[in-house]
């Protein structure tokens, strides 16, 4: 089999996904043997014009990381869809919106006002707000349009596969690349690859006390927890029940911290929040509506916990103002 033409691109991304690819360390060289990289801004030079000049479907595989936050991100997503055979939403941001999509619970106007008008250190008596087109004495300057909300990649273009994680675990990245490179039969379109097929709880090694029941929620801020016992058993929110396994238990085991769901939904579930509420509903030990409301009230920001990484791809979106 000949070498694969591969591209890696970042949209509204923190760069961590690209760092993760480099973190396959020595295996980068193996990848280099099997692939010709046509674009990878972190590791090599490229120009938009070069990508535009490629014949359609020239790239065998494009790993697209970052969410779609502005008009430029969208343009590149469309361009790369046209130029690629397989387009992969790589990392939480491209998969489900990621952290940037927490902005979907607020408005563009709110973001601009905070950033440019009301933030404590901003001094802006003229109330200047950045504009997409600005006349300066010497000519005109342009910047991309900031969208009202953040989109996951598949909300703007057709996507073939998804690799979850913020960032994806380097070891799994290698598995994905190796599979494509060796020409192994590919899973059906739309599959999540580079991750497990169970819920994180099914692989977690923290001790569980059989029949869990909690009478209230605790906060990481003010709790001293047992480093060996399941977080949920201790009343601390952990997204294990509504998160796909495959990260290598980075938070729950190696860092002694509860999961926040970056690996996205396990199979056969369509919304992380709905699944988490289902799980918590079985766990809370109360029958009285007032008592239940009190316990629920101890979780101040349900949406912010459950959709920490998937706010762009939940079943619902914030209503228009």
């Amino acid at each position, binding site marked *: 089999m000949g070498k694969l033409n591969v591209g890696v691109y970042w949209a509204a991304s923190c760069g961590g996904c690209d760092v993760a690819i480099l973190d396959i360390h020595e295996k980068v060289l193996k990848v280099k043997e099997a692939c010709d990289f046509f674009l990878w801004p972190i590791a090599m030079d490229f120009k938009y014009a070069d990508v535009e000049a490629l014949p359609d479907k020239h790239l065998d595989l494009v790993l697209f990381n970052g969410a779609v936050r502005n008009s430029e991100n969208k343009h590149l997503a469309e361009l790369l869809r046209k130029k690629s055979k397989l387009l992969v939403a790589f990392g939480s941001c491209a998969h489900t919106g990621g952290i940037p999509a927490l902005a979907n619970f607020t408005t563009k106007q709110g973001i601009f006002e905070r950033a440019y008008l009301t933030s404590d250190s901003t001094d802006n008596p003229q109330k200047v707000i950045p504009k997409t087109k600005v006349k300066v004495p010497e000519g005109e300057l342009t910047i991309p349009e900031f969208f009202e909300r953040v989109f996951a990649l598949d*909300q703007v273009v057709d996507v073939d596969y998804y690799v979850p994680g913020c960032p994806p675990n380097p070891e799994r990245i290698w598995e994905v690349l190796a599979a494509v490179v060796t020409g192994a039969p590919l899973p059906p379109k739309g599959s999540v690859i580079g991750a497990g097929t169970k819920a994180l709880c099914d692989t977690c090694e923290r001790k569980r006390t059989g029949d869990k029941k909690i009478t209230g929620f605790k906060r990481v801020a003010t709790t001293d927890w047992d480093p060996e016992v399941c977080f949920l058993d201790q009343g601390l929110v952990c997204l294990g029940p509504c998160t796909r396994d495959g990260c290598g238990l980075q938070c729950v085991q190696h860092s002694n911290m509860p999961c926040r769901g970056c690996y996205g939904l396990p199979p056969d579930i369509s919304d992380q929040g*709905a699944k988490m*509420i289902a799980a918590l509903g079985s766990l809370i030990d109360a029958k009285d509506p007032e008592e239940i409301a009190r316990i629920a009230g101890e979780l101040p920001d349900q949406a912010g916990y459950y959709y920490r990484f998937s706010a762009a791809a939940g079943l619902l979106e914030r209503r228009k103002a």
Partner: protein
Amino acid sequence: MSEPRIVAFLCHWCSYTGADLAGTARIKYSPNVRIIRVMCSGRIEPQFLLKALREGADGVLVCGCHPGDCHYHEGNYKCLRRFLMLRQMLGQYGIEEGRLRLEWVSASEGDRFAKLADEFTEQIRALGPLGGRAAFVEGTQQGGTSWAS
């Protein structure tokens, strides 16, 4: 305004039988309420409610057996806990609490169900339409695979 669209999830053993009774007893109630029967209110997944709202319901009604009467012991309590948590969370999406309601209805309470249906319809009418996908922020209605599933 257009007529309110209401989806009601009813448990098979008590509430659905109650609604059925209203029907056979020819007690008239709001035609806006579309009933979905489930075996037990404890079987109502929170995602059903989210899907209903997304697909155009202006309000969602959930009914189960009275406390102590659930045929699967405590399904209705589980339902209650999920319901309350979900309703609280939906405030963060800009969805009013009044669009979701949970009531216990027994097999013999046909007239009570009818009254509840009428009352809830008026409650939703007062809140106005939610409008399904189009109600949510720009762009979501164009859909993608995440939304299509």
